[in-house]
C-alpha cells in the first residue's frame, strides 16, 4: 500500500501501467493490485486532476450546507461531482466524514482541510488554487 500511496501522491491516480509495474515488482497478480487499490477511496484508479477536492457528505456537513458548497464548486469549475476538468487540474468528488464536524461544512483539497466554509469562502479558496 505505501507504494500505491506514493504513486498517487506523485501522479494523482493509478494508471493501468503503474499497477502492472507494481504487480511485477512485488511478484503478485495485476488483478490483486487492482483489487487492493479499488478498496481504498483515496487510491483512485480513474483519472484524477492535480487538485482533488473532496467534499464531506456525512450528516453534520450535510446539515450545515454541503449542498450549497457543491453547487458553488460545480459552477466555478464547470464540472459535476465525480468529474475532472478537461485541463486535468481539478477533480470534484464527495467523501465521507473527514473529522471536522464542529467546523462544518468542510472539504479536503488533496491533503489540506478547509473548514467553516461558505459559498463565498470556497470561491476564494478555489480562485487561489486556479492561480497556482
Amino acid at each position, binding site marked *: *500500500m*505505501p507504494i*500505491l*500511496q506514493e504513486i498517487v501522491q506523485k501522479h494523482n491516480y493509478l494508471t493501468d501501467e503503474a499497477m502492472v509495474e507494481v504487480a511485477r515488482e512485488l511478484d503478485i497478480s495485476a488483478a490483486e493490485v487492482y*483489487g*487492493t487499490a479499488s*478498496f*481504498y*477511496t*483515496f*487510491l483512485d484508479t480513474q483519472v484524477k486532476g492535480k487538485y482533488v477536492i473532496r467534499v464531506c*457528505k*456525512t*450528516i*453534520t456537513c*450535510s*446539515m450545515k450546507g454541503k449542498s450549497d458548497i457543491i453547487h458553488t464548486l460545480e459552477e466555478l469549475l464547470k464540472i459535476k461531482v465525480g468529474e475532472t476538468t478537461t485541463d486535468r487540474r481539478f477533480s470534484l468528488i464527495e*467523501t*465521507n*466524514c*473527514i*473529522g*471536522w*464536524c*464542529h*467546523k*462544518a461544512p468542510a472539504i*479536503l483539497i488533496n*491533503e*489540506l*482541510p478547509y473548514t467553516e466554509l461558505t459559498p463565498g469562502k470556497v470561491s476564494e479558496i478555489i480562485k487561489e488554487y486556479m492561480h497556482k
Partner: protein
Amino acid sequence: MEIKGLNKVDLIFEKIDSKEVMIKAFNMTSAEIIQSMLDSGLKGRGGAGFPTGLKWKYAAAEKSPEKYIVCNADEGEPGTFKDRELLDRVSNKVHGGMAIAGKAIGAKKGIVYLRGEYRYLLPKLMIELDSFHKMIKEIGFDFSVEYCMGSGAYICGEESALFESIEGKRGEPRNKPPYPTTSGVFAKPTSINNVETLVTAMMIIQHGAKDFIQYGTKDSRGSKVFSVSGDTPTPGIFELELGMSVQQFVNEFGDGDTKAVQVGGASGFCVPRKKFAETIIGFEGVPTGGSMKLFNSTRSMYNVLHNYLDFFTEESCGQCTPCRVGCQQLLKGVEKVKKGEAKSTYLNELMKLADSMKIAAKCGLGQSVGNAFKSIVGNFKEEIIY
C-alpha cells in the same frame, strides 16, 4: 445506576513533562503497569470499551519474541474528531502511551495507523516523534514507533481490518478467533488501542489509578473526550466526566430545541427527547467513542437515517452477506417506504432484518448498523413514513 452531573475536566490536554512520566513507567514492572490499568477500570476509548488492563494482560501472557502495539488513529466514525485534536496537541502523550503499553506487554515496536484524511498532520507528528525517540533512548526504553497511512476506508478502524491494511491488503476484517492479542498484525500478539486510550493510560501512570477512579461511575471510570457537533451553539472538543445523563448533556450543549442526540456516531444509538433523562452516557448506558450529535426540531430524522445508511452501504467492506446486502436493503427499503412505494409495515420486516444483521454479521460494522436503524425507526417512525 449512578448519574453524575456534567463535569468538565482538564486532564487529557494538560501539558506535561513526558520524560518524567516515562522514567516512572520505565521503573515499573510489566505486572505493575498492568495492575495499574486494571485498578483504574479504564475501558477502551474508541467505542468498543474493552477493559484496557485485561487486553494488556492477555497480550503480555503470549509467549512471542515479537509483539506489537498498534495505535488506532483511523478515527472515521461520523461526528468523531477528538483523536485529531489529541494527535495535534498532545502527540507526545500518544507516543508515550504506546511505549508504556509496549513495556506492559513486552513489545518493542509500535505502529500508528493514521487515517488518510489526517495526512496533513504528518510533518508535525514526525518532528515530535523524532524528539520522542531521542528521549526514550536516553532513558533506556527499547521501543520505536512507525507511522502507517490509511487511504480512505472507514472499515479500517475495525481492529483486524486495520491489521490487514497495515499488511498492505484490502481492509477486510478477519475471522475471530484468533483474537488480536494472540494473533494480530503480521500474525503476532498485538494490543491495539485507540489514541485516547493510550493518552489516558499515560495519565493514569502519571497520577495513579486512585486519582482516576475519582471520576466517572463504577462501570465507566474516568473522564472522556467528547466531540460535539450539530445543532449546538458550542461545537467542539470537551473533556467530561463519564456518567452524566443525556439530559444534562443537552442542558449544557443543546440549542434549546434538541429533539434527538445521536450518541456514538452512525453506529451508535439515537436517543429521543423523551429518553434524555433516563439515559446514561457511559458503558452501562449508551457507550460512545466520543461522537455526540445534536439534532433540533428542524431536522428530518429520515434524512439523518438515510445519510447513515448511505454511509454504511458505501463503507462496508462487502465480505459478508448480512452487511453487504443488508445495508442496501435497509437503505432502499426506507426510500421505498418514504416514497410510498412500499407499505409502512415493511419497516417491521426491516427491523427484523436489523436484528439478524446484529447477530450474524462478521464484524462490528455490520453488527452496529442495526443500532442507528432501530433507534431512529423505533423512535421517529412517523418521520420515516411520511
